């Protein structure tokens, strides 16, 4: 099953630990098989599976009350924007090519894992999995405008973190 790798990679970024990621993928897989008659052949199987993955994760968080689910809160977004702004003063002139060359996959994963969930999810789904804004809106159950705003803030946050990482 060729979608297992991207599902697991995404689960790792959502849960940030291997045991939870494995459970999440397995639950997603079992649900997909149970509800396979709800999938319309010819539509996007990957988007359908990712929607199940995200819903399963959301339900788990709700059940465990590990993290607030209302990630749309302006406060969360403002707080993280400000947190980023304070460490954004170093190395502003860094050329992107140097950053690209000096950044390791592990740096990127660590920077992503350090971001609030809503932004981590948004940049991952857009730039790694390459879903459209509309697909993401459906998957995450939020308006397209919210999706775009999360991608924007998430990307800027990530750039600042990576710049910080390469400059020690």
């Amino acid at each position: 099953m060729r979608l297992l790798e991207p599902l697991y990679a995404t689960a790792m970024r959502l849960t940030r630990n291997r045991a939870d990621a494995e459970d999440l993928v397995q639950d997603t897989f079992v649900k997909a098989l149970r509800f396979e008659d709800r999938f319309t052949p010819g539509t996007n199987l990957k988007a359908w599976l990712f929607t199940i993955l995200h819903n399963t994760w959301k339900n788990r968080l709700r059940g465990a009350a590990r993290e607030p689910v209302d990630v749309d809160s302006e406060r969360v977004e403002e707080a993280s924007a400000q947190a980023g702004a304070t460490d954004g003063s170093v190395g502003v002139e860094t050329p992107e090519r140097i950053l690209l060359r000096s950044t390791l996959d592990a740096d990127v994963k660590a920077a992503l894992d350090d971001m609030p969930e809503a932004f981590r999810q948004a940049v991952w789904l857009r730039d790694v999995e390459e879903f459209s804004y509309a697909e993401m809106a459906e998957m995450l159950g939020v308006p397209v405008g919210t999706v775009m705003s999360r991608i924007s803030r998430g990307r800027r946050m990530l750039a600042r973190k990576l710049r910080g990482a390469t400059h020690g």
Partner: protein
Amino acid sequence: MGDCRRFLDRLTAYVDGLLPPEERAEIEQHLAACPPCQDCASDEQIARIVLRARAVRLRNAAVPPGLRSRCDASLRGRKR
């Protein structure tokens, strides 16, 4: 900043190259005159380039063998 909001809302679509030419030109005109918005645009572009350059490796995580076999077993169970 109130005026910048109008541009920042469309920054992602701009960076993704999804805006029609006239909107694109409007954003570029604003960016040329507004260093803070230009910084935002550069940061978005940098993150996008870094992630997309690594996308294939990032999304192809090594699946633990145990997970793969459990998923295979569920699949076989369904086909029976």
